[in-house]
């Protein structure tokens, strides 16, 4: 973990309430996809945890959804600097993925899969991606994943684009050695039930500190109590209590 001041480079909406922010700063502590940063915002006591979408040298890309006053304030920042804690969380383990892992993301669960896909491809693996959204207007990053050379399946709950239904409706018939999943808990549970291989899930929980000190975000697993912020946010399918 490191505390660093980042400079905001860009901050643009991808959809009506999802924003992409790129910053420049010391990213040396970000060692794995699926990790997050914790952002200090003037006028708010607690930091805002945001998962890392992409890192390239000293350029950090974050994608976040405006859900409250904090993220609303973030969405209004076009320049200036931000105090970030970087290198938080365990992140995804790509060593166990096998040759053709499947990445499954829903809504703002999609961003961390982007850096993960890059990593897997750089390891010579063949990554397929399922991206789930509610409706066409909420879709983002489909082209970015295609740009990496991934096979991409998009689902929309209302059928306004791609496969009608949920990410699980795209699973049928797909061959994969392993899976990585990030999204809302109901989606995680559905994927848990409908996947044949082993895999890893990224979880969300209200955090106090984000680095394991306050026990605010603990959960029970088959391998004991885990702090989502430090022992997670990524948990293996085998340790989840569902």
């Amino acid at each position, binding site marked *: *973990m490191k*505390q660093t001041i980042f400079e905001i480079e860009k901050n643009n909406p991808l959809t009506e309430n999802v924003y992409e922010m790129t910053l420049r700063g010391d990213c040396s502590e970000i060692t794995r996809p699926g990790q997050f940063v914790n952002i*200090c915002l003037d006028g*708010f*006591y*607690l*930091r805002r945890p945001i998962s890392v979408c992409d890192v390239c040298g000293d350029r950090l890309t974050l994608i976040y959804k405006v859900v409250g006053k904090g993220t609303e304030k973030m969405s209004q920042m076009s320049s200036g600097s931000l105090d970030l*804690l970087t290198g938080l969380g365990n992140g995804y383990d790509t060593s166990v993925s096998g040759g053709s892992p499947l990445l499954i993301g829903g809504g703002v669960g999609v961003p961390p899969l982007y850096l993960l896909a890059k990593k897997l491809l750089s390891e010579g693996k063949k990554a397929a991606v399922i991206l789930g959204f509610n409706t066409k207007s909420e879709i983002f990053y489909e082209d970015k994943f295609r740009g990496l050379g991934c096979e991409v399946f998009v689902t929309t709950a209302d059928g306004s684009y791609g496969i009608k239904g949920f990410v699980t409706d795209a699973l049928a018939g797909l061959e994969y050695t392993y899976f990585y999943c990030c999204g809302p808990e109901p989606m995680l549970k559905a994927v848990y039930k409908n996947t044949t291989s082993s895999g890893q899930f990224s979880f969300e*929980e*209200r*955090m*106090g*500190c984000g*680095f*394991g*000190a*306050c*026990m*605010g*975000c*603990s*959960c*029970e697993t088959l391998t004991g*109590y885990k702090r989502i912020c*430090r022992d997670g946010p990524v948990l293996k399918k085998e340790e989840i209590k569902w």
Partner: protein
Amino acid sequence: MVNTSVTLCGVEIDNPIIPASGTFGYGYEFAELYDINILGTFSFKGTTREPRFGNPTPRIAETASGMLNAVGLQNPGVEKVISEELPKMRKVFSKKVMANVSGFSIDDYVYICRRLDECDEVGWLEVNISCPNVHGGGMSFGTSPKSAEEVAKAVKKAVKKPVIIKLSPNVTDIAEIAKACEAGGADGVSLINTLLGMRINLRTRRPLLKNTTGGLSGPAVFPVAVRMVYQCAKAVKIPVVGMGGVASAEDVLEMMLAGATAVEVGAQNLVNPFACRDIIAELPEAMEKYGISSLRDIVGAAL
């Protein structure tokens, strides 16, 4: 050259800065960030007789200049603390540590304190009779002078190390509770624990915390903490450890002027993991700015 050392219940510490229980774990997450031996000491995670997961999540919520927590004393239980956590802690912290203890009965308090009293690493026992987030026990001991005195008496009989009773601010007259602890033989009191608070989710129309209520901490509570430290310092002769919203070296000086012999830093460690390191670094300059050569000289100067 200013002198930051103070003496807490007969034990001299290099400075009065003490990370508060529940915001610093057993120290090793922070030892990765800085050498925690610069601290006066720290109070480790509240220890119960049996292991506890604590309350269901969400157990954190944000407020103006503060936060609510309803963790509910998650800890591995006193035996595992002694067999696993303290040895790990010892690798990164060589000073005496403050052992924070919570119970659901007088017998619990006595048992846990006796076990921790036997540990070399422990310099003080901080007996928490004020946790707002556990049901049956916890805060209930801290809201009546009689039960507070009983806990103090029973624990003191069982241990050799200094006993500091951690008090609840959710009472009509905290000085009365402090006096009862003193009468029970306590070597000190620490305050304030968190103020009971609540937030509601406007979308779900349910409390933000699964536990309904939680403990408020952060700069929002600082003026209440200063007032209660002042009232207790006036009421008792034993040392008062001040805490509640302390976020800067100047806050530390204000707490000490109000009567605090040492100062615990809580929520601020969570939003700035380097808070205690920074406060310790800023203390000498702050002392010079206000003409303070030795910290122990200003304890209670405003009384």
